[in-house]
């Protein structure tokens, strides 16, 4: 197996991790961009999506079972997100530090609940048979490279979700109202837009997408009570690098973080890779303090 093959394989892994990071970070970007709320329990939406997928596979069988998992994970996490918005976030408007603390508390409660229900050891999801294959290259300079279907599927899923969310924001009636609220909350309210409802919808959508990320992640690694914790840090990094409030920036940042991390891991250990990643992010925000993609007035529209 040649050097280029190793590099390509790692690059591919990086892109697939980036896809999950993108899904995880999208909700953070949406809710921060719109409501200036930092949701520390966002990672747990990922965890909930993972466990919901695990449970769904207990009841649904057959080749399309995993698609049911995705649906359940999205709906369940979105519902939980809506509940969180209605019961906690909404009451702490304009108090970002309190929101941070309260949602962190919720995150701990959810983790402990998962530990009590499913135990501290991770549960495994068996991927459907049609995903348990891979593209293999046997000839030429790519000889030895294997591209597992699962990872291809995750990349496609993430691209499809990104596209749908961008279409929803850019084309739909609700998306237009979302952009209006984002650009001038008071004016939108003065035109009769129920901004509370828009906030709720966006929060639920972001949580649902994180649930999808959890479902996708469950295909490649076990679901544990702390899976959200380990992913949320990277998701925050992606959000910061991408520039808050821009989906295109988020996508680019996710790719950057995912690929950088994977590339560094060729020669270094996982923890060294993390250190280098953080150094890279610190260096980057020295030059672009507001992230990769910025606009005078931040907007979600041009994704």
């Amino acid at each position, binding site marked *: 197996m040649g050097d280029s093959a190793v590099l390509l394989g790692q690059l591919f892994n990086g892109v697939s991790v980036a896809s999950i990071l993108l899904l995880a970070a999208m909700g953070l970007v949406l809710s921060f961009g719109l409501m200036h709320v930092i949701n520390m329990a966002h990672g747990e939406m990922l965890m909930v999506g993972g466990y919901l997928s695990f449970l769904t596979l207990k009841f649904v069988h057959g080749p399309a079972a995993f698609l049911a998992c995705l649906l359940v994970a999205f709906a369940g996490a979105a519902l939980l997100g809506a509940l969180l918005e209605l019961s906690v976030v909404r009451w702490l408007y304009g108090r970002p530090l309190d929101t941070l603390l309260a949602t962190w508390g919720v995150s701990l409660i959810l983790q402990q609940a998962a530990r009590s229900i499913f135990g501290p050891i991770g549960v495994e999801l068996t991927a459907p048979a049609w995903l348990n294959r891979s593209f293999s290259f046997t000839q030429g300079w790519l000889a030895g490279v294997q591209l597992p279907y699962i990872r291809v599927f995750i990349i496609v899923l993430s691209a499809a979700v990104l596209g749908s969310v961008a279409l929803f924001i850019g084309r739909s009636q609700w998306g*237009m109202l979302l952009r209006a609220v984002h650009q001038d909350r008071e004016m939108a309210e*003065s035109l009769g837009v129920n901004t509370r409802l828009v906030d709720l919808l966006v929060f639920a959508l972001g949580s649902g997408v994180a649930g999808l990320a959890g479902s996708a992640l469950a295909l490649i690694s076990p679901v544990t009570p702390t899976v959200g914790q380990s992913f949320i840090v990277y998701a925050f990094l992606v959000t910061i690098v991408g520039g808050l409030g821009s989906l295109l920036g988020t996508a680019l940042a996710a790719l950057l973080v995912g690929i950088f991390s994977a590339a560094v891991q060729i020669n270094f250990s996982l923890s060294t890779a993390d250190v280098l990643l953080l150094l890279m992010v610190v260096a980057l925000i020295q030059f672009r303090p507001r992230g990769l993609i910025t606009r005078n007035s931040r907007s979600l529209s041009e994704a």
Partner: protein
Amino acid sequence: MPLVALEKVSSAYGMSQVLYDVDLTVEPGEAVTLLGRNGVGKTTLLRAIMGLQPVSGGRILFDGADITRLPTSRRARLGIGYVPQGRGIFPHLTVEENLRSGLSALEGRPGVSARIPDYIHELFPLLNRVRSRKGGVLSGGEQQQLALARALVTQPRILILDEPTEGIQPSIVQLIQNALQRIRAELNVAVLLVEQYLEFAWSVTSRFYVLRRGVVVDSGLTAGRDPHSIAHLLNV
């Protein structure tokens, strides 16, 4: 019964009070100007009616109903159209999207079709030509027309206008003046106007209030009253 009535309304920003027991009424279809120097609380008063500025005392009535604690979006749905200072155009929304955003105010109103009325393009023919451009790239005069048109999309019973002529060239001021006169005559929409430009105010409104340090110090009919007779209350 007045369309809008303020009864002893007070308002404060933190510890500093801005409005003191203000009484003000606007009858259905009537046009009223609110005058005063900078910083006397004119914008605060408009924002209080809109629900954007908390009221610390008194009541605000719309069509006889107490709306003092109603959320802003509900007030818009009752029929209060607002054009703020600075116009409040959504910069990254197209002109058409800006207009369509006003349709939100029609939700829950029986017998109202959620579409942009034709007379809006008749009043402001410019908007149809620039409909796919972003609101943020329009000139001040164009934005002002868009803001007025967007407020009309909400099919208001009263239009609240905060300095619509500020920073706008004379030909557009004339156009806005004509549009306001037609809106009043043909649609029977009431107007509450904050304005520094007295001739403009006199040409579109029939009654005035003068605010000074948060207190109403003069009021009356514009007809027969020389605008220059109150200029001393306005100039620094």
